[in-house]
């Protein structure tokens, strides 16, 4: 089925505009736009990471040494906003852009011009957001959740709100595009239940995005009118309710959490079978588990609010609903382990990151189950235990999956193999340091250290110092990642084969490496045995 594209084999940019501006700024090509998203995401990862370095440096030892408390709060707020909306989400959109058409045999995304627009909104949104750091009064400092009334004290609130509006528009357009592509552009024979799990995970994620991004836009718009137009949505003195904001925000916020992890599940479900050389265990269960998690994500939002004084009945409902999530999540973990069982495994860098994902994400899941228990959450809530929990699911979860995907598909993107040695150095350095960084934060939270504080009692000194050392080490490790990517793109001499990995299956491996500018101009002929998940009915 590779015949459609083989004539491009020696000219990977055949058909691509030679003018730099035309090629990159006016691109309608899913691969180029995917590349733009990924570069943007990597840049945001380092910007957000530098904010985290400021945080960990100030927390290195008790006493205020480096920054004023308000600036510390700016850093925690901007770190979260940049990492969530700048690093994790665009990375998944970039991966989706690059890989979804290749995986379903489509020539491009369904709506290429909108694809260009949804990317090019992002740099402007982030310019707006980051510009607040240089304004008198500083950037938003009330936490990424922007709870009123505190967030209404921020002078630069309007900039942050407009930035979020832009990001939301970008995400919604990206989601529409992905749904339209998956539902309309699959090659004949690529049935829904033969699609790669990554494509499934993105289809479901895209529906989540369309459902909740407008809710976030509504919540922040109400903040805007409360601050500038005299409304009282969240102002108790005017008959409003500050807790209302939290309900609306977390109705967005919890599905948002799964927007950042479902595509990661998809990636891991592609990588593990490849390197275990064995079909994924329980394909349908994997797909249904993703759908079940997505559904549950809409009815658990108030577990972020157990300490606001919810009625007893509400606390019980949200506790039970939250606990239920561990069933489909458990199924996924069990299925990944079963995929490995009886396989023939090798441990290249993508597989190492995938294995670390399974273990460390599960640890984050365990602490999530603990957090769901309301009486215990009365202690955990808003402590470093929570910080440890969501960094385990977002760093060793989402970010590790993105790194795994980068190593997995980089040879397909660039046509060159990355340095396996340096990839492994990056992996081991990251996986050790990330645990030095985040594991002690469980202890800090249990011992009573609140989150978002710039300074602390000397009882918390030892674990904070360990955590900071881990933080600097993890931050430095990511420079290796950057180096490996730069090497693979421009300097690597080792040509990648079309299939790249011995056990790789699926349409994306049938096109040449690097993937030509245009692929599947004629729909490929689908042969089930060449698909990663071609035989699910047995």
């Amino acid at each position, binding site marked *: 089925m590779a015949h459609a594209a083989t004539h491009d084999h020696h000219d990977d940019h055949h058909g691509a505009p030679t003018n730099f501006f035309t090629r990159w700024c006016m691109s309608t090509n899913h691969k180029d736009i995917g590349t733009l998203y990924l570069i943007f995401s990597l840049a945001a990862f380092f910007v957000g990471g530098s904010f985290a370095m400021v945080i960990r440096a100030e927390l290195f030892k*008790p*006493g*205020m*040494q480096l*920054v*004023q*408390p308000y600036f510390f*709060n700016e850093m925690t707020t901007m770190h979260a906003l940049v990492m969530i909306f700048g690093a994790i989400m665009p990375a998944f959109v970039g991966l989706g852009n690059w890989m979804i058409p290749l995986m379903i045999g489509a020539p491009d995304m369904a709506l290429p011009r909108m694809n260009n627009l949804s990317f090019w909104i992002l740099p402007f949104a982030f310019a707006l957001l980051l510009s607040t750091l240089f304004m008198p009064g500083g950037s938003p*400092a*009330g936490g990424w959740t922007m709870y009123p009334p*505190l967030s209404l*004290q921020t002078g630069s609130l309007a900039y942050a709100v407009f930035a979020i509006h832009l990001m939301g528009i970008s995400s919604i357009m990206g989601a529409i595009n992905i749904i339209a592509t998956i539902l309309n552009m699959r090659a004949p024979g690529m049935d829904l239940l033969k699609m790669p799990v990554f494509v499934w995970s993105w289809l479901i994620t895209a529906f989540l995005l369309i459902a909740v991004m407008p809710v976030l836009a509504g919540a922040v718009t109400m903040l805007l009118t409360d601050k500038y137009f005299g409304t009282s949505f969240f102002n*108790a003195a005017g008959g409003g309710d*500050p*807790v209302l904001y939290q309900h609306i925000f977390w109705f967005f916020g919890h599905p948002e959490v799964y927007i950042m992890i479902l595509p990661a599940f998809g990636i891991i479900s592609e990588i593990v079978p490849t390197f*275990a*050389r064995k079909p*994924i265990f*329980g394909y349908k269960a994997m797909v249904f588990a993703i759908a079940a998690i997505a559904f549950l994500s809409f009815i658990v939002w108030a577990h972020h609010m157990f*300490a*606001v*004084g919810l009625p*007893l009945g509400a*606390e*019980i409902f949200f*506790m039970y609903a939250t*606990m239920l999530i561990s*069933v489909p999540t*458990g199924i996924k973990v*069990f299925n990944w382990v*079963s995929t490995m*069982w*009886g*396989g*023939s*495994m*090798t441990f290249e860098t993508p597989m190492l990151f995938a*294995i670390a994902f399974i273990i460390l994400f599960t640890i984050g899941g*365990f602490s999530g189950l*603990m957090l769901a*228990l*309301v*009486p*215990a959450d*009365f202690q955990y*809530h*808003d402590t470093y235990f929570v910080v440890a929990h969501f960094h385990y699911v977002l760093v060793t979860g989402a970010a590790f999956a993105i790194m795994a995907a980068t190593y997995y598909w980089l040879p397909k993107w660039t046509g060159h193999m990355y340095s396996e040695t340096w990839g492994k150095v990056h992996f081991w350095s990251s996986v050790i340091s990330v645990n030095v960084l985040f594991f002690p934060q469980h*202890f800090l939270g*249990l*011992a*009573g250290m*609140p989150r*978002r*504080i710039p*300074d602390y*009692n*000397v009882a918390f000194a*030892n*674990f904070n110092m360990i955590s900071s050392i881990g933080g600097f080490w993890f931050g430095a490790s990511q420079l290796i990642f950057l180096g490996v990517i730069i090497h693979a793109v421009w300097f690597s001499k080792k040509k990648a084969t079309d299939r790249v990995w011995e056990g790789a299956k699926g349409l994306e491996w049938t096109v040449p490496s690097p993937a030509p500018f245009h692929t599947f101009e004629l729909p490929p002929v689908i042969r089930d045995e060449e698909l990663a998940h071609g035989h699910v009915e*047995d």
Partner: protein
Amino acid sequence: MTSGGIRPDGIKPAFFKRAAMAAAAVAGALFTGMALANPKPGQLNMTRGVTEWSSEPYFLNNVALGVCVVIGVLVFGAMFIAMFRFRKSRGAVAEKWSHNTMLEIVWTTIPVIILIVLAYLATGGLTSFADTTGSQMTVKVTGYQWKWRYDYVDYQGKAIDKVGFMSKLDDQSNDTRQLGSGLDPNAVKADGEQTYLLDVDKPLVVPVDTKIRFVITADDVIHSWWVPALGWKIDAIPGIVNAAWANIKTPGTYRGQCAELCGQDHGFMPIVVKAVSKEDFAKWLAEQQKPAAAAPAADASAGASASATAPAAPTKG
């Protein structure tokens, strides 16, 4: 073949409950060597607390941790066995199977059973927490940027008039925490305890063995009132009055902090609760209710554990 190493289906749920309890007990024994009321260096686990109710979160925490450790050992154990047994470098040949309905049913059912047990335990703790009836004392807590106000509303069925005060970070901590102060946080001590950022000018004084109802609100932004030794935190929200209760069993000084980001000095508005015997409390309360002029002499004996410099006279907020 089946995916071994995860869980043979012959094992009964009761075993898991017992195993979970046992693991929880082991975890508890390991980690509670220094689970005193206030944070200690190297502390690894949650405090058991000092109130009638505060063992609930502690117990749930240990049980849930035990359950997670057992599941983690089984799942990660299976993974590591797979990684060693089924390596290509050891000549492993990939098998073809990708289904096992029985196994899938088992590993869906067993977690559900574990969850039901956990939910049952948690619901019990939650229900007892929600019941603030029958309290013998009411204290109103109000959060401000960046201090707390305590007003004594009633005690043993009698309304208390004009006993209330602001409580803010002690001066020594406040001087030390300024950027570039050059002062050593380790040097901030009260009664031999290192109290940097965990001490106030005027603590909340309450009696032991009394069911105290706290009504909690805020005046500007959202705060959260949290003393780990009491076992809970609850948000202080402008325009909303939340209620919670505590019945402290052991006299002592218990320290906590604001737990909801409330602006630049969020990290600098600690909470200190001083639990004293009922007799001492009655004495303290009587002194507080005297006219302002007579109060300062009484302050030192009961008011503060540390650097209590503010006048004890009730201030109207």
